[in-house]
């Protein structure tokens, strides 16, 4: 797994959604739950997938017709790195808010 060159608040939001899903989640749900625009989430998911943090596959729901949904989930390494990144980001934010208060 490759480390991310930069971790932005949007990255943390997306990683948070994937952690909360705890398994396969539709890419559209990540857009909805993160509250970030698709123009931010799509490139992030691609970067995470290329870096080995996330893997994806087609939804195997045979009852649905039409185009298949793309389901994303954190890899095992990605999940632990995501927890670390999210925790580090939140503690940094808390310390920043404390310092400015």
């Amino acid at each position, binding site marked *: 797994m490759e480390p991310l060159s930069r971790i932005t608040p949007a990255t943390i939001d997306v990683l948070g959604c994937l952690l909360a899903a705890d398994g396969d989640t539709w890419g*559209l749900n990540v*857009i909805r739950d993160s509250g970030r625009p698709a*123009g931010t989430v*799509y*490139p992030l998911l691609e970067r995470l997938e290329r870096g080995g943090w996330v893997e994806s596959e*087609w939804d195997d729901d045979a009852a649905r017709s*039409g*185009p298949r*949904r793309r389901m994303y989930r954190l890899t095992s390494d990605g999940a632990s790195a995501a927890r670390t990144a999210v925790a580090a980001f939140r503690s940094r934010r808390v310390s920043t808010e404390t310092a400015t208060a």
Partner: protein
Amino acid sequence: MSGWAARGVRLAARLLPPAVRERYREEWLADVEGARDAGVRASSIVAGALIFSATLDRTAPEISGMPLSVLAQRRARWGVALIACAAVLGVGTWINAGYASGVSSPLQTVLALAATVWQLLAIIAAVVGVVMLWRAARDSGVALASAACATGAVIAVPLGLFEPGLGTLLTPLAFVLLLASLVCGLLAWSNTPVTASAPKASTASARPALVVGFVALLAGVAFGAIELIVWSPLWMAPGFTLTEIYGALSEGDRVYGLVFIGAWIVFWTLVTLFFFIAGLVLARRDRLATRSVVLLALAILAAMVFFQFWAGFSIGNSISDTLPPYRGGRSEFGSLYGIVGQLALIGVIIGGLAPRRASTPGIVESGQTV
């Protein structure tokens, strides 16, 4: 699913490299379909897809569908091809003196416009070519040398043009750098050990292409001959008839000049016939590829036009030395002919040097399909 949104994500998918196009097309279509239920605007999905297509890192092997070395090779080839095209456009326009014939006519207006467009295209091709070589240079030392030389040439040419005092130094330097850039670029291309799989050569349209090429080359010989014997003399000595023009020349000048023109006509007629007969023989054995026929016909046409200019040099000099207004140059039909030659050469360069579209997703590595 709203039709415009589906069309939007399809368009965004079309902008992606072939290796990932279908995956994202289907993913985004499913997202558009479910957007309303998820409380997400379909326009956001379309915008996201377009942003994704525009910002995607296309150098990644997973995205481009080919190894970095192949990508570098393809960029080096595009760089070399574009810089060669820039040289053809720039040098061709310069040799033809901007296609100016000194007369006012609708054709002359078109030629002047062509000269301006050619110069603009030459600048764009040179800049894009240098960028492509620099991008290839990240993975190849030889491509780096090529990029550096091309950059030097591209800087030297305008400096030489705008500073006439430096022109005598910079113009030859630009030519040397350009040559070095092309040589290094070709080396970078040939040194790359892996190549993207190219489509199998098609022979389906080879015979029609051969006939079209044959007719076009014959027309090229006929047009060039008329330009040399009729239009060019009439343009160089306006107000005189052809009989008066040729009668005014000394017998030595007339014979010498016409021999050059005659040799040009005979030589290129024979080349055209050989092209056609050899093509027919190969076509009978089913060994004639359409692409090869087209490229060969264009190469012959480009060479024919290039040497036509020199074939008329002797008679042109004699006329301009003998009859008023004692001017050199060539007729506007000659300029038009020169443009055809330039375009043919550009076709050869693009068709022969630029990488062909790789068939997806197969990549040939060391001769094996993976």
